[in-house]
């Protein structure tokens, strides 16, 4: 089977092999998802269940899972839609890789993430520990990152993946903060316990708001919605799964999970309402005139989850119930539409509405199935979608007139863009070349369509699922009774109004175009995506600018130690009382000899600092060394004096030997005299700061001698250690370990020298 992409079929396309061997990993994932679906279903029928294992007792973390109503709803959605999408994906991915001339082995970059994603979704749905929820929440984001970036050769895919990662993961941190806040206040991470313990308070409100932020970013709600349209760079199965029924659903799942907590604060609920409404309008208006198939669906998703968030914002049994039902119906329909888009693109090589049309006759099965899915979204009767809007209208009416109007507007928008989508694809004159559509790319859509119709005929199971789920969110039993009523009740009138308004929008493409374009342009100019890009680029620029300023030569590195250390010492000095803390000290006996020696040391150091010739430096250095050795001899430290003399001799020898083989210091020529003077002054200041700091500290601690020393013990025990020179005994016995280390240091240093000098011997 040959699929020709657009007009740009690569040469030799016809000779390409038929899709490579069966996609085992894909089918494996599919089978696993089916098994998960069966388990969820059985678990639900068996009345749920729960278990908990200790995870990190030090932090009261538990691996606690429960298969409650909410878990069942999202679990079934994730595994059920998952199984269908995986089946679809086995075919799609083969074709996709073939088109991109990539090797079949790249499947292994795909399926593990898809499977892990399904696991994470089920985990997220069942987790009862807030940190555990966070873990799964982020796990879905990580999976989505790698899936969006699957076509890694395309820049679009890479930037989109990074954007999705940044937005969702950074926002998810809010959830972690909320968890920690709640833990600090209530001493548990367990969600049921938290819901029981958290009373309305500032902390609760803050935590609830943070949780909402994390969830809203995940559900692509305004103003953090911009990552979702970009995420369409992912292969279609990813969009069909993650961006319809799973990843974006994770956000509202979390809202549903902690809804009682959010409901403790009126402000948070109002916030949800506002954000939801904004998302409905922005997403809906933008969806009205997107051209790329998946973009239409992406904005539609933003809008649809806006509904759900709105309903959670309305709260109460009605709002929660409607939200749960909505998620279910939407998940079924939207993934079907995504798969339709993928099938169409695969068959035609086109991904824009403006270049497609009239597919109805060429692919009638797909057209009908997609039609059912569209009808479900548009809430036409005989599909399960009708009830989702009915419940929405009921909840909105109960909440107030504003929300009721909003609900109608939302439904009208949905009707309009879904209608446009389906119409542009399948109606009208045929355009472009069409290849065949593989069965596997159509069958899952058909299955979903059948489900949607079945739900439209027998709504009971769907309603029960939603009731159970809503029971968890509402914190009490919820009764839903969706049904067809052939009367003039408010809900029906609202539905009629929505259809009428939607039809009007379809009939006035020019007006719609202008409005939608205006919104799009405004979004381009000042939208959050623009803000995101500006921020990231500003960050990069700032980083470069800062880096250019940072000089990292050795001298700066050293000055950067000396000056802050000096400042630190100065601060320490200023922070504590110094009155009477400093002592000059008496000068007695041999001290009169030591003073001139120390003066000699000082003079020699100054000579070293200003000396022009290196040899003078070397000589003055040894003057310092020998003068100090003499000082040690005079303060009753003959051992030190002896070693100081021999070490000094050795050092001088080595220093001069090294010196003799250095090139002569070049005259400073890179800078003019003023610069040189300036630098010398700067160095002198740095050196002075260091000197003063050392002076302050050394004088400070020398002025505060301890009353006694452990060395009294050393002196007392020296005879027991068979010695009389206490210093020698300390070195060899009491603190012999130090000596062992010290000689090891010597060995290591010389090994280093030998390694560097690379002369024979070693």
């Amino acid at each position, binding site marked *: 089977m040959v699929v020709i992409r657009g007009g740009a079929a690569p040469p030799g396309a016809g000779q390409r092999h038929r899709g490579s061997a069966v996609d085992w990993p894909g089918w494996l994932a599919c089978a696993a998802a089916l098994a998960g679906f069966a388990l969820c279903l059985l678990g639900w029928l068996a009345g749920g269940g729960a278990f908990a294992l200790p995870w990190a007792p030090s932090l009261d973390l538990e691996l606690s899972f429960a298969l409650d109503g909410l878990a069942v709803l999202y679990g079934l959605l994730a595994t059920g839609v998952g199984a269908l999408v995986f089946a679809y994906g086995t075919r799609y991915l083969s074709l996709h890789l073939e088109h991109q001339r990539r090797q079949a082995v790249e499947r292994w970059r795909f399926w593990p993430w898809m499977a892990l994603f399904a696991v994470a979704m089920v985990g997220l749905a069942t987790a009862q520990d807030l940190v555990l929820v966070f873990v799964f929440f982020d796990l879905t984001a990580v999976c989505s990152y790698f899936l969006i970036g699957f076509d890694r050769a395309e820049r679009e895919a*890479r930037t989109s993946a990074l954007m999705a990662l940044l937005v969702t993961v950074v926002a998810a941190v809010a959830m972690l903060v909320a968890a*920690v806040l709640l833990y600090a206040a209530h001493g548990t991470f367990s969600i049921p316990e938290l819901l029981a313990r958290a009373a309305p308070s500032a902390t609760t409100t803050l935590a609830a708001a943070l949780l909402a932020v994390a969830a809203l970013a995940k559900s692509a709600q305004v103003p953090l919605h911009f990552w979702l349209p970009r995420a369409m760079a992912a292969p279609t199965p990813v969009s069909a799964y993650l961006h319809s029924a799973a990843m974006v659903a994770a956000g509202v799942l979390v809202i549903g999970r902690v809804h009682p907590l959010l409901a403790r604060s009126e402000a948070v609920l109002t916030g949800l309402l506002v954000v939801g409404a904004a998302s409905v309008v922005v997403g809906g208006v933008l969806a009205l005139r997107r051209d790329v198939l998946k973009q239409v669906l992406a904005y539609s998703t933003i809008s649809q989850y806006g509904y759900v968030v709105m309903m959670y914002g309305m709260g109460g049994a009605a709002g929660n119930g409607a939200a749960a039902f909505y998620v279910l119906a939407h998940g079924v329909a939207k993934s079907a539409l995504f798969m339709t888009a993928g099938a169409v693109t695969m068959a035609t090589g086109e991904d824009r509405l403006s270049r497609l049309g009239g597919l109805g006759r060429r692919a009638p099965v797909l057209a009908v199935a997609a039609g059912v899915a569209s009808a479900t979204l548009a809430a036409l009767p005989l599909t399960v979608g009708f009830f989702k809007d009915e419940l929405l209208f009921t909840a909105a009416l109960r909440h107030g007139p504003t929300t009721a109007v909003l609900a109608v507007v939302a439904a009208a928008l949905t009707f309009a863009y879904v209608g446009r989508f389906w119409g542009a694809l399948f109606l009208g004159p045929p355009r472009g070349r069409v290849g065949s559509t593989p069965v596997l790319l159509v069958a899952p859509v058909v299955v979903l369509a059948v489900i949607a119709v079945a739900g439209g005929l027998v709504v009971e199971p769907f309603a029960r699922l939603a009731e159970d789920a809503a029971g968890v969110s509402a914190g009490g039993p919820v009764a839903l009774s969706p049904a067809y009523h052939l009367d003039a009740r408010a809900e029906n009138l609202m539905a009629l109004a929505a259809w009428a308004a939607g039809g009007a929008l379809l009939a006035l493409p020019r007006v719609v175009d202008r409005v939608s374009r205006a919104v799009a342009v405004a979004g381009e100019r000042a939208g959050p995506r623009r803000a995101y890009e500006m921020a990231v680029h500003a960050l990069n620029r700032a980083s470069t600018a800062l880096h250019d300023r*940072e000089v990292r030569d050795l001298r700066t590195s050293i000055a950067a130690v000396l000056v802050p250390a000096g400042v630190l010492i100065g601060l320490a000095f200023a922070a504590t009382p110094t009155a009477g803390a400093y002592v000059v000290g008496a000068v007695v006996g041999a001290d009169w000899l030591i003073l001139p020696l120390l003066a000699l040391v000082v003079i020699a150091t100054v000579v070293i600092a200003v000396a022009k010739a290196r040899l003078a430096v070397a000589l003055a250095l040894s003057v310092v060394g020998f003068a100090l050795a003499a000082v040690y001899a005079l303060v009753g430290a003959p051992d030190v004096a002896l070693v100081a003399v021999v070490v000094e001799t050795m050092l001088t020898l080595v220093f001069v030997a090294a010196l003799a083989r250095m090139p002569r210091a070049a005259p400073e020529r890179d800078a003019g005299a003023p610069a040189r003077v300036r630098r010398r002054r700067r160095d002198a200041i740095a050196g002075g700061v260091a000197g003063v700091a050392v002076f302050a500290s050394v004088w400070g601690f020398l002025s505060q*001698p301890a009353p006694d020393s452990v060395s009294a013990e050393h002196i007392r025990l020296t005879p027991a250690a068979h010695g009389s020179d206490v210093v020698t005994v300390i070195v060899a016995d009491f603190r012999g370990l130090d000596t062992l280390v010290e000689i090891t*240091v010597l060995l290591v240093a010389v*090994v280093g020298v030998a390694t*560097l000098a690379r002369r024979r011997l070693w």
Partner: protein
Amino acid sequence: MLLSIALLVPWVSGALLVALDGRRRAVAWLAVVALAANLAVLGVLAAEVSTGGVAQVVTGGWPVGVGIVLRADALGVAFAALSVLVLLAAAAHEAIGGVRSRTFPGLVVLLSAGLTGLFVTADVFSFYVFFELAMTASYALSAYGGKRRQLRAALVFTAVNLLGSFIFLLSVAGAYRVTGALAMDQVAQRLLTVNPNAAVLIAAGFFTAFSVKLGLFPFHFWLPTVYAGARPAVAAILSGAVANIGSYGLLRFGVALFPEQLRLAGVALVVLGAASIVYGGVMAVARGDAAEMLAYSAIGQVGYVLVALGVGGPVGLTAAVLYSAVNSLNKALLFLASGVRGALVAAAFALGALSVAGVPPAAGFVGKLELFRTGVVAGSAALVVLLVVGSALSLVYLFQVYQRRFWRADPQAVGAASPLAQRLLTAALALLVLALGVWPEPLLAFSGHAVEALLAGNSP
């Protein structure tokens, strides 16, 4: 007994290995075996002290203070085991790839001896000598490779850290002068009655020395040159093992010896830590060079440790210990991964990146969790925001580089794949990071014990 063996094993084997030609495969692997043995001993020791006990020995059987006190508590053993683990990974990495200098294996093992010693000594001066042993070995190692950039890195590293060491020594002299003792317990005891001015000056000296080692802002200027210039294995050693001296030193000296001064400086520490986080994070964003990016990232990451230390209390200190541990593993993993090519490496790097950013299921997330707890305990919204900003920055800089290196790299630019064993080693480290994130209890519990041990020494 075990404690002494933990010292003896790397010391003797290092001395022997340094005399052999390390370029021979067998010698390199012997070094790996020696490090593994060292790690094993430390593991047994860790099991012994994890229940809150300490292993203590005084050299020569003399009274405390006369002889040198060696004491292995949970904190010291944790840091020792961690550092040796990193050394082991780096040594194995080089052993697989082929050692390029005669002395590399021996020096790594001797470095391990120095680190083990300084983490288990309870004597201020003995800390200094072990510290010098470790540092001298790292000076010698930092020039490993011998290329221009490595040489320059070694020069900068040595000069700056020697300065830091001498500042440390000055403070040791001061500590002796004002207390007349060298054993940490005695010093701590006597410091309580010392004139606050002198004590705070000495504490400032210690702080400077450890900050230089850690590469905290504004003492960090040496760090990017060194980490970016050194070979990956050496960079892993420096940032994953040697830098631990800094965090351990701040914890040990700060909490056990200078609790008063630490309290006094709490705000200053938090401010410095925050500056490190932001500075390191922003600088890391547009680096281009993976190693340099990691170097700046290291500056940012130690900022977290400092912030946690500044907040203090059991929660803050636990976070500091835990984060140091996680950070050291992350850095070892990322630096090693940055020097390896081929399959598995991308995954390992990604895991390390997630860990640095604190994204589950990598270990870093536990560290972030503890840090957030610290922020909440401190009651500081600014701190929490800072942590969020830090995570966001780390995501940006790590994944920019990740994508460029592993997603868009054109096939011609990618050289031949590294040996499979080297890649497996990197993957094993990554798995460890993953495992510690999935099952964080050992890490959490051990950090808790470490802090208990640290605070227990505080209230005699």
